[in-house]
């Protein structure tokens, strides 16, 4: 299982890359494997400011649907446009092309709630 050490994680199987006050968010390799083939990603919260833990979108796979949660609170400043036409990049490149949103972090201390790569590895066993 691929769990890049430089990223942070949530127990909802999302990864977070923090650069300054911006957080880039996607789902983990483990999550895409569990979901199976992704059919589409629906994110209609661009421009909205949401709290940590709130739903910012949903990911529909052939088998099941899963909500996407804000790993930290803030404004959704960008949605990955590539997901619209090629949702399968979530399966093929979850940590790269398959990213979902960028968030402008409101409260940097919320990042302390995130898991390290080794904590996340323990979580998924």
């Amino acid at each position, binding site marked *: 299982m691929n769990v890049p050490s430089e990223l942070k994680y949530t127990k909802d199987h999302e990864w977070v890359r923090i650069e300054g006050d911006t957080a880039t968010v996607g789902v983990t390799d483990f999550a895409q494997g569990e979901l*199976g*083939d992704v059919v*589409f990603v*629906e994110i209609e919260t661009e421009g909205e400011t949401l709290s940590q833990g709130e739903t910012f979108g949903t990911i*529909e796979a052939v*088998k099941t649907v899963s909500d996407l949660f804000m790993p930290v609170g803030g404004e959704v400043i960008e949605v990955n446009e590539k997901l619209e036409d090629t949702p399968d990049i979530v*399966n093929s490149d979850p940590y790269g092309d398959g990213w979902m949103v960028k968030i402008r972090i409101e409260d940097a201390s919320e990042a302390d709630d995130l898991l390290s790569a080794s904590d996340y590895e323990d979580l998924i066993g």
Partner: protein
Amino acid sequence: MRKTVFNDIHRKMGGRLVPFAGFEMPVEFAGVKKEHVHVREKAGIFDVSHMGEIWVSGEHATELVQRLTTNDVHKLTDGRVQYSCFPNGKGGIVDDLLVYRVHADKYLLVVNASNIEKDWNWVVAHNHHGADLENASDSTSQLAIQGPDAAKILQKLTPADLGAVPYYSFIFDELAGKKNILISNTGYTGSGGFEIYFNNAEGPEIMDVLMEAGREFDLQPAGLAARDTLRLEMGFCLYGNDIDDTTSPLEAGLGWITKFTEGNDFIDRTFLEQQKEQGLKQRLAGFELQERGIARKDYPIVNEEGNVIGRVTSGTMSPLTGKTIGMGYVELPYNKVDTVIYVAIRNKQIPAIVVKPPFYQPA
């Protein structure tokens, strides 16, 4: 968690194993879309050993099976198979099943894994006829080899002429060097192929020989997820989704296996005949969503005014057509083809058009 005899082989072939009906079963190998398309175009092999097998034999066997099932067992001849269901005495369905007639004194009932215990108890409780019963589910394995090339693969491994085994027929013959294998021209995919039944001990060797023989045809393992999308694309009912203890076989569109013929005195016959005469209030309908979304089990179906008129029982994206398809119960007359209905998906109402399954016609 129970395991089929193919558990180790699934792991070696890269299967992702999940709990299903008390068994650890492979949900997917290369991915549901790939497996789905592969079965439609070439051939796939499914481990369906979790399914249950109940033998009914003796001079009262026909009588008991006739009483228990909605279809007319007297229409069966030796070596033929019939799709049927167990009515539950309350207008619902205990399970759907295949009835194999070996001869007039010997039947095999193949039932869903999730219902084996319930079915067995049901059959035993209604055996006032003194038929001999055997639950062979634990000792029997089953593989489904499905797809346009499935018969070619199996033909390499048996002296029997599989071309002489019509759809919904079966034989006992040698296969992969093993004698007395039940070879059945049936399946749950709509792409043709066979289902084979044998003793657990023979399983690993049969799988090896099959995979080897299938290499030139690119035979690939397929999991439960593809099995589900394949059956849904054909509009086949899945017990627990589209039919259950609360759904009537007539409402489920299973009128074609509910035979009010002379001498077919099955459980619930009177009730179902009345239901048919009085007219059904709801029907299982197929639909295609007109906008992006996937209808999932239990999502409400509403009309244009937003009033609830039904519920979704199955839904997915058809891997072949890219359409998002589903089935669900709707009040009459919303079941009419071309009617516009709406599926409530989270905070949206997505329009859908009622269509008559199958959603896809394999070549």
